[in-house]
């Protein structure tokens, strides 16, 4: 008898429950008199994710009825969704490309750029490597350019040891890869390809840590967390060696590897009170929250200026 009941439940009740649940769902909560409600949807770069995640967390504590979602689909993937009108805000670790602006325009979506923080791409070495503490942009370019034949450290500078170089870096889908190749090699996505590539920066940390002759690069937040296990390579851009640090990234002397992080918003979406409130919250709290997740904030006045530049409420 048990089995019969079971059959009835499984075949009749389960699909019914499904249909019922499906019908009940999907009601968008509109504006609520008492406070803000509704959805704010964010997607895009994994590098900017920690900042938007922190903002989303704090914003929802302050506004418990607003639902903020943050996804990771990469800067390019994020723009695809943003331009299709699927998201309100897009995280980006590089400026929007002309082709993406076109795509947005086709769908009648306007993209407004707001810089939210600085990141310093950090070139890292194994701590046992006590020679390559500073490299020039030219040396880095010779090492990383496509077809580079440099295999040993003494091929870069003759007084460096005759030891094999092992290279680690982000994979080609990453915005970090785009930026590094552009800033160092001089052409976006131009890189030698005989290096260990990983989308997971922790893999790169472990790789460089375990290999004496190794060198790699990734975002400053990962270096800061592992600075007891890795050494940074200072970068000489013609004005002497500058090591990556919060101060040098903020004042722009750590060049050319300091890069801005952006969020892109649809001006239309600002008509939704919860989206406007979120963007204002973002800019008002960036000075406090950005450093907490390992990035360098812009000057406080800059955030105030950006806040003032937001299109007026409709």
């Amino acid at each position, binding site marked *: 008898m*048990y*089995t*019969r009941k*079971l*059959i009835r439940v*499984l*075949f009749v009740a*389960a*699909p019914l*429950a*499904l249909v019922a*649940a*499906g019908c*009940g*769902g*999907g*009601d968008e909560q509109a504006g609520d008199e008492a406070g803000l409600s509704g959805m704010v*949807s964010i*997607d895009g770069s*994994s590098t900017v*994710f*920690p900042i*938007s*995640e*922190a903002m*989303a*967390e704090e914003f*929802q504590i302050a506004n418990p009825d607003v*639902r*903020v*979602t*943050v*996804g*990771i*689909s990469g800067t390019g993937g994020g723009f695809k*969704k943003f331009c299709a009108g*699927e998201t309100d805000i897009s995280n980006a670790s590089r400026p929007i490309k002309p082709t993406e602006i076109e795509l947005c325009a086709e769908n009648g979506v306007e993209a407004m750029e707001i810089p939210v923080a600085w990141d310093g791409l950090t070139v890292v070495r194994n701590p046992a490597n006590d020679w390559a503490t500073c490299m020039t942009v030219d040396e880095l370019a010779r090492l990383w350019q496509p077809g580079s034949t440099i295999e040993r450290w003494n091929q870069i500078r003759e007084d460096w040891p005759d030891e094999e170089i092992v290279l680690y870096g982000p994979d080609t889908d990453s915005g970090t890869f785009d930026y590094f190749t552009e800033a160092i090699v001089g052409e976006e996505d131009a890189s030698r390809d005989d290096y260990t590539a990983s989308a*997971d*920066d*922790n893999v790169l*940390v472990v790789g460089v840590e375990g290999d004496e002759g190794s060198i790699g690069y990734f975002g400053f*937040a*990962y270096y*800061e*967390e*592992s600075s007891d296990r890795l050494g940074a390579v200072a970068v000489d851009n013609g004005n002497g060696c500058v090591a990556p640090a919060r101060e040098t990234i903020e004042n722009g002397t750590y060049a050319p590897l300091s890069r801005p992080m952006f969020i892109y918003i649809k001006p239309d979406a600002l008509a939704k009170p919860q989206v406007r409130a979120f963007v204002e919250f973002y800019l008002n709290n960036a000075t406090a929250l950005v450093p*907490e*997740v*390992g990035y360098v904030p812009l000057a406080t006045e800059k955030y105030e200026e950006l806040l003032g530049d937001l299109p007026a409420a409709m």
Partner: protein
Amino acid sequence: MNDARFLPKQAKRKRAGAIFQAVCLVSIGFSIAVLAILIVDVSRDGLRWLSWDFLSRYPSRIPARAGIKSAILGSLWMMALTAGISFPLGVGAAIYLEEYAPRNWFTRLLQTNISNLAGVPSIVYGILGLAIFVRFFGFGRSVLAGAATLALLILPVVIIASQEALKAVPNSLREASYGVGATKWQTIRYQVLPVALPGILTGTILSLSRAIGETAPLIMIGALTFIAFAPTSPMDPFTVLPIQIFNWTAKPQADFHDLAAGAIIVLLVVLLVMNAAAIVLRNRYQKRF
């Protein structure tokens, strides 16, 4: 034993037997050792984070404040909907193929295709789900779209497992049922299904436990990474345990890697409970002939 013909090479044959046994022992030992290493490693990092707070809090950028509530609820929603979609479809297809379909080239073609589908990489189902459920049907990046995608993913296995269960029902049972005047539908409904059900359920639960660990297709259809609310309807955005684990292991701070280990323990426990349920169901309802 007195017969001389039994004696030649006896020592050698016995040795071969002993070697084979040893090889089998090593195989099982290896599998268990890998699992044990995983469990020990994960427990060492993750156990101290396990607490009621960890289960009942939303994710946070501060490790001490972070929890997996939205991921657990998302996974539960996902499983309930996936089961609701794949079970009736899978069992229905199996009943048709086993009980109704004529044996001809067309059903053989269907059968081959179903077996092949079981081997398609899960990311392909993700792309399919993105095109069909997210975009075409307009489900958006919702629990429903994710569940429909995972249901497709496990459907071939559910169908095959159900078919095997139906095949195991002795034909004498069907013939006896026809013999007392039952129709085909009555025979299936009152004789065949009750007998096959434990096997069908076991197969379904085992394939659901595969679905609960899936990450790739869900990332493909755009399941989200940071969610600090519980889904309240099938159209809500969602996250699941494997995605939360993936997100935490990618963070720079070591504490998050330990949190991920904690979430892995929770996922392992959920899997264990599901597999135990499959065994209990099988033992409780199985009839032998």
